[in-house]
């Protein structure tokens, strides 16, 4: 059986971003941090884009953040390959460490999503190779 999910686009991984995807498989959200200028870096880079230092390390981050902006899709706006995922809300998440990440807000009614909404990471297995970080409302 050829399921829709089998045709969904997989991340095209760069050599220097492998650790991000190894980390999500273990249920951890990691980004790079420049050990010279202390800046958090995402998406992953070969060197720190701020100071061009090669002294860049991977750090596990909290996985908490806020919705910076979002798209509350209606059924007609959902791409064909993502119909099985619906309802989900594609959003730009601003993480506590200051970096922004494109992802989905899930496990809630799409009409409840708003700018500034506190969220936390959840991990969704796509296949044996990839686990995608997604976000759900943070219940305090």
């Amino acid at each position, binding site marked *: 059986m050829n399921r829709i999910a089998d045709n969904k686009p997989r*991340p095209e991984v760069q050599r220097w971003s492998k650790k991000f995807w190894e980390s999500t498989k273990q249920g951890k959200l990691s980004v790079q941090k420049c050990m010279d200028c202390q800046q958090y870096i995402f*998406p992953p880079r070969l060197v720190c884009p701020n100071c061009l230092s090669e002294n860049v390390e991977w750090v596990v981050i909290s996985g908490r953040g806020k919705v910076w902006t979002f798209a509350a899709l209606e059924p007609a706006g959902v791409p064909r390959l993502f119909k099985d995922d619906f309802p989900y809300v594609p959003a730009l998440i601003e993480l506590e460490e200051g970096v922004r990440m494109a992802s989905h807000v899930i496990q809630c009614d799409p009409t409840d999503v708003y*700018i500034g909404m506190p969220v936390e990471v959840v991990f969704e297995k796509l296949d044996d190779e990839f686990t995608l970080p997604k976000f759900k409302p943070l219940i305090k």
Partner: protein
Amino acid sequence: MKREKIAIIGIGEVPTGFFPERSCKEIAMQTSLEAIQDAGIDKNEIDTILVTGALSDRMSFEIHMATGRMIEELGLGNRVKTNACIFSGGSSSANTLKIAEGLIRAGRANVILCIHADKLGTCGTPEQVENILRNAVFCPEWEIPYGINGVVLCDWIMNRYIYETGTTLEQIAAVVESNRKWARLNPHAAFRDEISVEEVMKATILTSVSTSAHFQTYTDGGSAFIVTSAERAKEAPKPVYVLGMGSRCINSIITTCPDITRFSYKEAAEEAYEEAGLTPKDMNFAQIFEWYAIMQLIVFEELGFAERGKAGEYFAAGKCAPGGEMPVNTNGGILAQGHTGAGGGYALLIEAVRQLKGQAGERQIPNARYGLYTSSGGSFFDCHVTILGNDSAAL
């Protein structure tokens, strides 16, 4: 010291729309011949050809063009010194102008023919075309696996802009209505039927804030223009001078853009106004690059035509439509003329020149002296503002 300016002396354009029989090479030839005639030059004066490639037929078109196809077609063998492709997506026209300026000032070129052609309307199914554009605009590692596409990008901008400014959905819909009013007067536009604010809002509902009417449709199209020095242009029938250019390159994907409700148009515009010695009040029109209605409001404000959050009121009051005090996108813009890939910025430049040459027919803005156009590539990764004028006193 004042820098020597350049000028556009001739333009050519084919109708935008769905023309399966019309090849990119044919578009390139038709528009080039029209531009040569419009400039009133001998074709043998052309010593440089700069081409912006087709997304629909990248390999074939660019390789043919870069290896001298137009030189053969126009009988310019052994005359042209430089023949190359320049591509930065939707901002290709602005970068072509900058490179043309450099070649002319350096004394390496006198008369430059610039061409764009594409067939995004008829080269494949809508899904195939969407895939070509998707891979050109979104990140295959951090965006595409999440289904981030044009609808999502537009909503991200819209929701954040509405949150920060209080602009209404009716005001955003008024942008589409305004563009279509202009397109009705443009025989080259693909979408010429008027559409009301209510009809925009009742089109296919895609998200909580956007409908299918907020988006571009991919079409076939192309245009050409001829650039020379301002000095040499004075011999041309109706030269249009490039008075100021300002640009900022920001990022490569929307996820990393620091401010998606402003981008860097303000900085680019300030640079262009300063070079031209002009202000927003001097502009008789603005041709604003956009493939989402929302972008016209943002750029209108960043260019200094309205305070932050007030552009919606201008469009809703009809001030940017035909007969309004600040005409915007007099060819219908990308939404109504049609999205031709890298050609959207070309079409807006051509329209700006056409208005300043007094060749805009029914949609001619009376006594237009100065105007500007903007352009941007990818998912708005750069901002270009170009100020043009037909008054040699401004040089």
